[in-house]
């Protein structure tokens, strides 16, 4: 990403004279910079309230500093631990099943022998990515309702005697989260792998064919190994999300029945902050999350560099 910004050659210098001579250009970029300072940097600085006893009348500057009190409270709240446990379990499931699914899907799509059909599958597979999660969630809530289409079909096929309570049985939230995650994201995630596959040198396949390697061998000895570096990079980026939950899923698919498995940290922080207006406490929770995410990416990057030589930075 840095490449786009890197200055190829220094021309002109940066004195006040230059600045004035390119006033129009500067006036184009300065509003954007002002925007970033206000809408990105002020909230980053706003994280100080995690260490304050923040109230609206005092503001950022007038509120009292109370050190780590919020963090101490957080670590003694059972709800925090419940949310933390759910977040980590859902993220692990995501990492192990939802995240690799696009790779598998790309391998399968790539083997489709009919070009036209391949295009159709590819194009239609990423439609769900463009439907608002609000609609996706509503749709699945309906379909998996005790009286919904899925239960009707299951009962018609005598696979179950009584309708399955998909949304009120806490044990089912995790598998459902995985299924809906794949439904929504597998096609979109596969694009990047399919592009990488099209970049593989075709001579490799020809040579392998000459040596008598069949389709399956070519997949496992050429296509897959060529995708591993890309997969590693994406995986490192994904490790940082171990302590971040999917707020969309938690809010829109969660309910009071499945709360013990669906409630994640983001939702906890959201409720503390916006529903109970405990701004400082909620900020402390998300601050803790961000710090953990940075630490995790650094560890994953180091580990990946040791094991496979693929490092992000």
């Amino acid at each position, binding site marked *: 990403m840095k490449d786009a910004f890197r200055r190829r050659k220094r021309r002109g210098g940066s004195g006040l004279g230059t600045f004035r001579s390119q006033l129009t250009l500067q006036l*184009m970029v300065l509003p954007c910079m002002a925007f970033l300072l206000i809408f990105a940097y002020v909230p980053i600085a706003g994280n100080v309230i995690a260490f304050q006893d923040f109230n609206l009348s005092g503001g950022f500057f007038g509120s009292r500093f109370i050190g780590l009190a919020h963090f101490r409270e957080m670590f003694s709240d059972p709800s925090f631990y419940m949310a933390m446990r759910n977040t980590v379990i859902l993220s692990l499931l995501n990492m192990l099943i939802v995240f690799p699914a696009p790779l598998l899907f790309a391998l399968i799509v790539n083997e*489709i022998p009919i070009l036209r059909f391949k295009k159709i599958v590819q194009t239609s597979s990423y439609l769900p990515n463009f439907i608002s999660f609000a609609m996706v969630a*509503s749709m699945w809530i309906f379909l998996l309702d005790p009286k919904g289409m899925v239960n009707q079909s299951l009962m018609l096929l005598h696979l179950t005697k009584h309708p399955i309570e998909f949304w009120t049985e806490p044990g089912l939230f995790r598998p459902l989260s995985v299924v809906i995650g794949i439904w929504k994201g597998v096609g979109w995630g596969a694009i990047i792998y399919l592009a990488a596959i099209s970049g593989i040198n075709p001579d490799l396949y020809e040579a392998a064919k000459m040596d008598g390697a069949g389709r399956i061998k070519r997949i496992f000895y050429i296509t897959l190994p060529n995708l591993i570096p890309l997969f590693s990079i994406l995986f490192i980026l994904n490790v940082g999300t171990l302590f971040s939950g999917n*707020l969309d899923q938690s809010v829109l698919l969660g309910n009071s029945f499945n709360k013990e498995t669906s409630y994640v940290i983001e939702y906890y922080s959201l409720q503390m902050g916006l529903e109970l207006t405990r701004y400082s406490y909620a900020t402390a929770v998300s601050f803790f999350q961000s710090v953990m995410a940075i630490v995790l990416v650094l560890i994953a990057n180091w580990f990946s560099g040791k094991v496979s030589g693929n490092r992000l930075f």
Partner: protein
Amino acid sequence: MHARIRLTAEDKAVNVFVIVVTVLALLATFYPIYYLLVYSLNDPIDAASGGLYWFPRKFTLENYEYVFKNDHLLGSFLITAARTALGTLTGVLFTALGAYALSKDRLALRKVYSIVGLVTMYFSGGLIPSYLLYQRLHLLDTFWVYIVPALFSIYNALLFMAFFRQLPSELEESAKVDGAGDFYIFARLVLPLSKPVLATVSLFVAVNHWNDWFSSAYFVSNQNLWTLPTIIVRMLSDNSIMDNMKNMSPGMRMDPLSTLLAIKYATLIVTILPIAAVYPFIQKYFVQGMMVGAIKA
């Protein structure tokens, strides 16, 4: 690879496996949406008896008539359309302007600007500090909370910069000789040449505006300003449709619960359809954007 050579048993097995799996995947993608469509086009009381899978049994448009008569829905549809139009226009132009200046090597202080931008890709302030900021700026509970915080996006700026850098520099130089200023060059020469990247970025921005349910739910308490996805979540979770029973036909009023379900399905179809309808024509721009973004990353 597509030469007509004899297929081995292994080739055939792989082909069959792959086609079966992908046909199932296609079904899993579209059937749920298709089912909602069939159900919502069927008489609600008849539909409640079950067994409806492929075609409407007792065709009716009553459910849709109800949806379009509901004032809440119509209002939020207009709000969402206005938000998407204005948000996309302002967000794309604001970002493109900045990106154009940043793509020029001669821009003074360029390094500083770049660092200011890059840092925001790795760190963000989080929800609560942003909420407090919007409160301070009096953005909460106004239409502008949809527009202003989405004016600039560093990711979209990178997409623009990658494109602007590919434009031939002679273009700018010859216009300069003719006495054109930077803004004139940008507006009259660069923008018309940038249609592909403008399309890509506009679509990303527009879809985000159209699909966002969060801003309305947590930054806006006035329900008259809520966007469609948020209204849908609310409508579907409680039974506010029941309050609107006066709009229902006498037949529908006989069995409110079944009717309610059919109306919910119809509502979902109405909101999903605009995206699904334009999708085949615009999807290639999404992929282009995704690829440029991925290569940069």
